[in-house]
């Protein structure tokens, strides 16, 4: 069983929902990435989505774009991110790490090399935002060969046929984007999400995580009730942006603990 499967199985037995925080590797600086990963685990993260910096993050809002810019000022590239995961794995063997980013840095490295490196350092899943199943099948074959789960987004605008198509290719869990827009945008329409979930469940046997627009304990709890896992990205990145380098680990830790408590009530 993969680490991601194991985590969802254990949560199911304990009747709990997964908390999946996101931040960008190298933000605010490369030295803090591994300490932040450990702090997130201690604060109650079940899975961590680690952003790979990219110069042109089209699907992200300004908050996560600025995180990429800060990381890129330190020249944090994909191979650094993989090294960071390797370092994290020296003292953590249980928490799944999902790399999230855009396809071009992987294209530049080569999918086979990337997949092999992921397996070596202990990456569990990969979400390349701009590679839909149609274009990615060859790329994803490399991931599967090395036991890495390709993670996919589903959007409010995804038709039944598209949900079915994604479901066929997806492993690990499926990430439902809870609003129309980019990361960090707008406010949640819980009724709309609630309506969409049964359509997703018809095709998707995997756990469903929901993200985009979750900003505090209340929204985390409300969303957790509707699915298997809650993804929080921009709110955490905002905390990193607003903290001094001395306080950033403590501040992020405090925020994630609050989210954990909320999600536990679901």
């Amino acid at each position: 069983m993969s680490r991601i499967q194991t985590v969802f199985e254990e949560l199911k037995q304990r009747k709990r929902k997964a908390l999946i925080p996101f931040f960008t590797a190298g933000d605010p600086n490369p030295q803090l990435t591994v300490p932040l990963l450990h702090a997130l685990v201690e604060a109650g993260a079940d899975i961590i989505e680690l952003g790979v910096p990219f110069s042109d993050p089209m699907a992200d809002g300004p908050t996560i774009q600025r995180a990429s810019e800060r990381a890129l000022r330190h020249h944090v590239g994909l191979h650094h991110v993989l090294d960071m995961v390797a370092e994290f794995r020296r003292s953590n063997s249980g928490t799944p790490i999902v790399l999230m980013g855009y396809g071009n840095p992987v294209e530049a490295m080569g999918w086979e090399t990337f997949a092999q490196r992921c397996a070596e350092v202990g990456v569990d899943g990969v979400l390349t935002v701009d590679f839909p199943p149609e274009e990615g099948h060859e790329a994803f074959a490399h991931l599967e060969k090395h036991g890495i789960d390709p993670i996919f987004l589903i959007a409010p605008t995804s038709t039944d046929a598209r949900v079915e198509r994604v479901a066929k290719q997806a492993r690990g869990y499926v990430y439902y984007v809870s609003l129309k827009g980019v990361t960090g945008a707008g406010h949640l329409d819980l009724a709309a999400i609630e309506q969409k979930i049964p359509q997703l469940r018809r095709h998707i046997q995997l756990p469903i995580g929901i993200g985009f627009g979750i900003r505090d304990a209340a929204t985390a709890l409300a969303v957790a009730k509707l699915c298997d896992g809650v993804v929080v990205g921009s709110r955490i990145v905002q905390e990193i942006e607003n903290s001094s380098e001395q306080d950033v680990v403590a501040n992020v830790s405090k925020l994630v603990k609050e989210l954990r408590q909320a999600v536990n009530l679901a």
Partner: protein
Amino acid sequence: MTYNYPDQYGHFGPYGGIYVAETLMGALDELNQAYEKYRHDPEFIAELNADLKHYVGRPSPIYHARHLSAHLGGAQIYLKREDLNHTGAHKVNNTIGQALLARRMGKKRVIAETGAGQHGVATATVAARYGMECVVYMGAADVQRQSPNVFRMKLLGATVIPVESGSKTLKDALNEAMRDWVTNIENTFYIIGTVAGPHPYPMLVRDFNSIVSKEAVVQMPELAGRQPDAVIACVGGGSNAMGVFYHYIDMPGVKLIGVEAGGHGIASGEHAAPLTTNSPVGVLHGNKTYLMQDEDGQIIETHSISAGLDYPGVGPEHAWLKDSGRAEYVAIDDDEALRAFHDLCHFEGIIPALESSHALAHAMKIAPTMGKDKVLLVNLSGRGDKDINTVARLKGITL
């Protein structure tokens, strides 16, 4: 035509495709279906053709640049006068087509990205013409160097949003427009201005601009007694080049030459010439193509004197035409383009856009090496009024 790219998923050989987040897939499906439905619809075609004739002023003439040709002493240079279109460039051929599609799809708001501002102006123009709300994203650096076009867009009723992120040029404007589209997908049509982006855009923009070569294949025999030996066009994203190349692709006797921006010179690294320099292939803005990037796969900043060519990628069909050997790609640097700009003013009384000056400069480079009976067709894709501030500044003059 025997040439039949792209395939149904938008692939030109290994290039093109649909590399976007799931959040955009629904909208692209919808656009694809609408285009398939209307592209052969007699009513749609009639409306498009009527506006191209009466509103844009098509067909645009071809002009034999006799004085310039005589001065160079070699091949005869002919200019396809897209600069004489309403709004002053080829861009309007495409924006009319897309706006008519938008209207049929029930979208009341259009958005666009723009580099030099020509596509922004062409979009603002058709939005006014068809009564649509219009928002144009433009890199903050381009807003500075293309201020006349910014004012024109505002006069036409568009909202111009300067984009402060990244390199503050065309690619960042494209990122921002994509974000707007994802957010407002229900009521908004994204009018992409070049032959890049996810399928069906590269095909759609090419098709609407192919009117340029459709006219030229008829006009050239009338005027020059035959088809040209080579067709030459500047390439940023590559929309005017695809327009003037398209109906010549199946004529093997006609060379196709795309001219990229050499900026401060290829050796300086400060240019926008991914094809000429054999940049690595990558994925940006929804398609796979040659892409200026560093070893980590991050997109690098480009440079050109002309905002319209200042783009790190290139339309996927050009990538394919390069690999298949059907077209060749060269670079012209800032200084060469500027000399061509002045020469055309001086010899022919035509002020060309700095973008088009790149194509002209290459024609002027090769014409003297060819016989006087040879014929070069240059796509004069836009007029240079928008560039007078840039050119004046280089001469140390404040207007």
